[in-house]
Every structure is written in structure tokens, then in C-alpha cells.
């Protein structure tokens, strides 16, 4: 694995170790990451879905692309910009 050329700003984070210890370090990071993710507290899809639905219905009325708004409130509704003669 070649080491990418790096800018001075990123240099403190780049490793130049030999390939074998890189693989072990890399694998260890993956295991660590998975342990973090495994410990996550999840909720049921039924509950999560209900909450998504609640948010939608509570905000539906004020969603202009869903319900539409008065032409007077929508600056894009006039076909041409007004010109004052």
C-alpha cells in the first residue's frame, strides 16, 4: 500500500508504518467501531415509523410543496417579474 502524498494540514494524521502492522491496526479499528455500533440503543421500527408519520401529519399543512400556498404568498407563482412602466 503506497502512502498518499499529504498536505501539511493533514500530516499529523497520516501513518507511514509497515504494511503488516497497518493491517492489524486497521482490523482492530474495525472491531472497535463495530463494538461501538453494537452497543447502540435501538427502538422498534413500529415506534420509529409512528414518529415519522406524526411529524409528517403535524407539519403537512405548512408544507407548500405538499399543500400549495396562495399565489400572493408564493414569489415564484407569477410568470414574469413585474415591471413598473
Amino acid at each position, binding site marked *: 500500500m503506497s502512502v498518499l502524498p499529504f498536505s501539511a494540514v493533514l500530516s499529523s494524521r497520516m501513518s507511514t508504518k509497515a504494511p503488516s502492522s497497518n493491517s492489524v491496526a486497521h482490523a482492530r479499528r474495525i472491531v472497535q467501531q463495530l463494538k461501538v455500533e453494537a452497543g447502540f440503543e435501538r427502538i422498534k421500527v413500529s*415506534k420509529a415509523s409512528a414518529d*415519522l408519520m406524526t411529524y409528517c401529519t403535524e407539519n403537512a399543512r405548512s408544507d407548500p410543496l405538499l399543500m400549495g400556498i396562495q399565489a400572493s404568498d408564493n414569489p*415564484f407563482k407569477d410568470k414574469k417579474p413585474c415591471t413598473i412602466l
Partner: protein
Amino acid sequence: SCDFAPSGSFSPFRRLPLPAKRKYMRSPLSPEMATQEVPLNETLAHLKTESETLKLKLEEERAKLHDVELHQVAEKVEGLGQFVMKTRRTLKGHGNKVLCMDWCKDKRRIVSSSQDGKVIVWDAFTTNKEHAVTMPCTWVMACAYAPSGCAVACGGLDNKCSVYPLSLDKNENLAAKKKSVAMHTNYLSACSFTNSDMQILTSSGDGTCALWDVESGQLLQSFHGHAADVLCLDLAPSETGNTFVSGGCDKKANVWDMRSGQCIQSFETHESDINSVRYYPSGDAFASGSDDATCRLYDLRADREVAIYSKESIIFGVSSVDFSLSGRLLFGGYNDYTINVWDVLKGTRVSILFGHENRVSTLRVSPDGTAFCTGSWDHTLRVWILMC
């Protein structure tokens, strides 16, 4: 520079001429390992077995809570009727493919960037160009408006993200005030200001995301975990805390803690590159769009994919996604020149919009939700509203 002749017919196997999205293995970054002693049992084989076991456990845990599908729960919600959306403004002026756009918080200005190296600020109400900057590189793949409306950020093949303060004086040379903020080792794919003009979040073809201080250009935090180019990012709505989501060529969407740099959740269900990610307005979920021709919804508290938005007839990649204000609608810009509008809850398509004459490359709903803007390889931007 590379170009390919736009054709009138669909070509499913057209490839991006530039830049190549490469999959590669980066050397892992762990300087802290230099001072640790390696425990005896940590051979590579042992670690691989452990990671496989953990992956299986993760799947089991996620499956236990998969008691129902979102669209089943949504059966009790009223269906959406006919949707007619039309283009109300067409912004013409770019000389080549539009690659990215962003709305100003004032709901009327738009910044867009193009393959030809130009970044333009438009007044979308009048379609007038207010500012134009020529970047020193082509393929300006990323641009963003500052929260104050007083600056824009952009970058691409120059591997940088630069900030241009917007002057009230139209004659002033914007390029003279340019500030280089971010430096990556590969192309800049996306950028976003955080909730102030002072910090910028970037994603790059070098496989990382990074948080930068605009004033000093200092790197505040870097985010490592993607195994290939990172193509997109989105910040969580400010009420929900300091996280953001990124998507990459490794087919993964990762959720990150901005302060620690830690990847807190990871989702890998797409079958190809993830080109776009966008948070659901409540912050509890996010949508993604991929080269696998699907959009997907991931719920963060259930920690899994909860919906797929796809049809057998849709075979072209999704370049860009965004939600309407209530989160009920998901807009997707596709490589087959169309926009598909999805009912987020029921999983069905409510509308298909035609108008662009080439790929839709970027799509954003306006800050007050009254309109959405699309940018395309046909060199134009379009602003769409609901007709009713």
C-alpha cells in the same frame, strides 16, 4: 478536458468522463498505535473472526426490532392526490454542466457551480446573475451558501474548499478576496457551512470528511471510516445536535459525531455509490440516493433502513435527494433527466417531472419549502413549484 457528446437517447452505460470515482484502500490512520503494546491474541485472523461475529450480532439486534414495515404503519395515513409541479424559473448562464447548487437563507438567492469552473450567484425571483467567479479549476463539484448570505464556498478538482465573501459592489473582483480554507488530497465532493459562517464541513475523493475553521484554515476534526471516495454529506438539523451523515463509493452511509470524530452509526444496504444524503426534517432519519437507482430511508433511532423508493422502470442512478418541509415528499434527481417525487411514508411514486435535457445533478428544496431547484448537465437550473 474530457467531454462526451450529449445524446438524445438514453445510454445506460455512459460513464462519468471526469473525475473518476475510484475505489481504493487507504493506509489506515492511527498514530496512537505507535505507543501501545499489541496484546498477544490480536492476530489478524482473530480480529477478522471477531469482526464477523460482531457484524452478525449487529444484524441480529437490528432484526429483533424489525417488527413492521414503514409503509404498513402508513396504511392509515391518507394517500396523496395528483401532483402537478412545474418549472417557474429557468436560470441560464453556465457554459457547461451544472454540478451543484445551494439556496441562500433568504429563500431567493442561489449559488451554483459548473464543470466550466464558474460559480454564479443568482436572484431566483428575477433570474438575474448577481455575482460570478471563475475558479482556477474545472469541475467545481461543490458549492454552498454561508448562513449569513455574505459568502459562498466552493471547490472541486483543485482539492480545496475556498470561501468568497460576496461584495455589494458588483464591480469588485470576487477572486481577489478568495480565502482557501480546506485542503484535501483528492477532489472536493461536497461542502457545507455549519450553523455559522465560521466553520465548514467538507467531503472528498480522498475518503475523508473534515471540519475546518474558516478564518484560520485550521483543521478542527477529521472523519475517517469510509473505504473509498466520500461523495456527499448533510448536517443534522441544528436542534438535533452535532452530527452529520456522509455517503460514499463504498456504498456506506455513515453518521458522525462532529466533536469526537467518531462514526456512531453506519448503514450499508445500497448496491452502489451513494451520491446524495439528506436528513429528514425532524433529524430522526435520513434519505440517500444511489447509482443503484434507488433512494432509501434510514431511521436513526431504529438504526436500520426502513424504506426503499424504487421501481423496475427506474434504472438510472439518483444524483441528488431532498425532502419537502414536512418530510412527506422526497424529491430525487436522476441520471435519466427526470425528477421522481416519492411519498416517503407509503413508498410510492406520486409524480415524475420532465424538463431537463440532460442528467439532473443537484436538487435542493428552498429554505421555506415553497420551491425546489434542480441543476443539470444541460447547463441550466430550474426552480419548480406545486401548481394548484
